[in-house]
């Protein structure tokens, strides 16, 4: 399988850089799998899991929150606001995130803020349920 260059960067550090076979990206409009020769796309991410297949061995899974993916002819770059390897994410941390989102929702003053918060909350809940199973 053809390989392409993939970079995952968060504001704090470069988390991953290398040649990979495919990457599953959680975009707001659904998950998409990026492989080599993918058409250029720019997508906003929802909180979710990025799955990176390097060809050999088990795929690496990383939890990302906020940010966007940029597919270019020369490769894929994910700019994530928060990104941590899935192994380091435990149920407790996720529960805390859900709680924070719930508080944001409760605190939201305007309709718009409320809508944004509700969307975030549902995305997180979805993710939590998906990970538990």
């Amino acid at each position, binding site marked *: 399988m053809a390989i392409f260059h993939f970079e995952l*960067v*968060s504001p704090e550090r*470069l988390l991953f850089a290398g040649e990979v076979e495919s990457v599953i990206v959680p*975009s707001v409009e659904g998950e998409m799998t990026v492989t080599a020769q993918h*058409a250029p796309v*720019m*997508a*906003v991410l929802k909180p979710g899991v990025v799955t990176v297949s390097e060809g050999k061995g088990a795929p690496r899974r990383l939890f990302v929150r906020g940010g966007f993916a940029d597919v270019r*002819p020369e490769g894929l770059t994910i*700019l994530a606001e928060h990104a941590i390897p899935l192994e380091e994410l435990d149920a407790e941390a996720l529960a805390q995130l859900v709680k924070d989102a719930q508080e944001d929702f409760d605190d939201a003053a305007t309709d718009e803020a409320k809508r944004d918060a509700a969307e975030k909350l549902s995305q997180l809940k979805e993710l939590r349920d998906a990970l538990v199973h």
Partner: protein
Amino acid sequence: MPSLKDLRNRIASVKATQKITKAMQMVAAAKLRRAQSAAEAARPYAERMGSVLANLASRLTTTEGAPRLLIGTGKDDVHLLLVCTGERGLCGAFNSAIVRMARERALALKAQGKTVKFFCVGKKGYEALRRQFEKDIVDYVELRSVRQLGFDHAEAIAKKLLRLFNEGGFDVATLYYSHFRSVIAQVPTAQQLIPAQVGEGAGAAGAEAVYDYEPGEEEILEALLPRNIAVQIFRALLENNASFYGAQMSAMDNATRNAGEMIRKQTLKYNRTRQAMITKELIEIISGAEAL
């Protein structure tokens, strides 16, 4: 003429001070290394962000309906100066250089009849600006208790800034921080945050590629601009942090060297006085013996 005991005491106290400054210099050197690598680690993200933003902005052909964060409010009556300084002193001219730059800008703007507001990050800048612009300071964030600068801190500041902007609190926001050029050179820098300044060169290369956008271009741009502000603030904080330790290191290095110089001089004086006394006593004894 100080007595021998006075001189001894003075030398001892300078030595104690020298030990402290030396220790501070070494601590600053160690922290500088960490701060520097953190600043470097943040660079790829900020660069990517800049190129993506430039790409998107270059595709916006009409300014009509473009996000206000990009094109501004159309006025420039109220200026907000976001002044990032350190939390501590003992770092040479680091804090005062940033404050001086912001203050000069504020006075120039006021002379033009504009309104100036301040948003202070860091205790030292707040204290310095409070003396002159007490009523113009709209917000103040202290990062004293923060051990490791995270993106969250920048995000919180950006959130406050955006809320203020959306309420119509200001038209133009400028960020003041110290750019870390090298250990001995920190350059106070001003950077305009709102309206966003987008690099032009990067846009041309990427413009040929046909992009799909999920969701639409404008939505992405709208999501990106606030995030860009947080990223810029985060970068400024990291640069500031590295600059601070660089400045502190050289200041403490100077202090240690000055203390060494002082000890040398005082020791010389001490020895001279001591010898003068011995000579004097000898003369007294000899002349006493001769008189007998």
